[in-house]
């Protein structure tokens, strides 16, 4: 009887059984990753409906190609790669790249300087139960350029290692670290102090005053 939260070993066995024809076990295999795939798709698409469609397509595609999965990486890493590709593909289809923030094309050579040094009170996780807090966090996150959102969500939301993040996104470990640093500092600036500043949307920030410019 497969576990609903299979360890890596169980997961390997589960994949083997699915590859041999027990396809109904696919539900057990993906259960731990259902939300994760949605969150990653949402990170890229910033729209719940699109993210849901992309997540469904990603799971279907993973099922279709599971027979070709050769355990060269962890299943979770492979699945996240599938999800990211699916979301990016949908993004291209929706022509969302036209609306991509200008800093997406920026190089990462310059150093980032924090702009706000206000002291932060510790915000307990219980604050997330408040709808407005959650909305502000999501809005701030959504205002980041995609390359920062992708790295941030994989490392800080999904808790992938730096190395796995690098592998999933196909970028160097150094690039992951640089983007992660910037994403964390940008979010801090956007949400500081006391979550008040984050209602300022990306387009409302006057040119030349963006903290990462």
């Amino acid at each position: 009887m497969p576990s609903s939260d299979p360890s890596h070993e169980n997961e390997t066995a589960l994949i083997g059984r699915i590859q041999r024809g027990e396809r109904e076990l696919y539900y057990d295999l993906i259960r731990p990753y259902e939300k994760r795939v949605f969150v990653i798709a949402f990170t890229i698409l910033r729209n719940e409906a699109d993210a849901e469609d992309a997540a469904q397509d990603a799971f279907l595609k993973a099922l279709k190609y599971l027979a070709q999965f050769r355990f060269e990486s962890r299943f979770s890493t492979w699945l996240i790669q599938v999800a990211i590709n699916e979301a990016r593909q949908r993004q291209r289809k929706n022509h969302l790249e036209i609306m991509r923030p200008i800093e997406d094309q920026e190089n990462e050579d310059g150093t980032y300087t924090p702009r706000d040094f206000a002291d932060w009170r510790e915000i307990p996780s219980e604050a997330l139960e408040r709808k407005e807090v959650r909305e502000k966090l999501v809005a701030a996150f959504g205002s980041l350029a995609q390359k920062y959102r992708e790295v941030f969500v994989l490392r800080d939301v999904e808790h992938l290692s730096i190395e796995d993040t690098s592998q999933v996104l196909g970028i160097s470990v150094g690039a992951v670290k640089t983007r992660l640093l910037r994403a964390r500092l940008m979010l801090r600036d956007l949400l500081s102090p006391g979550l008040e500043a984050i209602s300022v949307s990306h387009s409302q920030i006057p040119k030349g005053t963006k903290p990462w410019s």
Partner: protein
Amino acid sequence: MVVKCEDVWLEISNYFEGKLDPAFKRAMEEHFAQCPQCGAVRDGMRNIIQLYGDETMVNPPAGFYARLHDRLSDQIEGQRGSLRGWLVGLVATGALAALGLFATVQNRFVPEPRAQMSQPARRMPQQLVAIVDEGKTFHVPGCPYMHGKYRMVTPDEAIREGYAPCNRCMYESLRSAGNTEPDLDGEEIASSMPAAKREGPSGQNQVSRPGI
């Protein structure tokens, strides 16, 4: 070691990753104690990491899991359909295999020898053998005791048609093939064929057809 604010801003993310050189980390912590601005950056980043790392931060919309499973079940059901197709194919293959087995069992019945005094083969030759329609024994091609127009068949076919091995040419052939004591004239007719088959497959797939 003394670190400046700029050094802290560059390494603050790695500080939370726990991947700093211990001496540099100590120097950063000393700096935090003296620099409220960098202390605020550190505290803010810690908040960011903790808040966004909370698993309740982003949630799928209501009904997401049910809709996902619905869509997956369509796909998996479809593949079950394919599985049914495979099963049908498998059953058909099994039936064919059973027929083949039946034919093989049929072949195990030893035919009546063409000549009453002939002895059946106990060891199977590994090459095609020559038979003459009017004859009663099968031969190695070129055997001086074979006369008339011959055709090449497998030893199985020859035996099924009632031919017995030629005591001369087949004896020599089997001996040169490594049978130190070829026994062509045993008496256990019924057991001879299976025993011979256990020694190896019939010559049909094993030997190259002679150029005749």
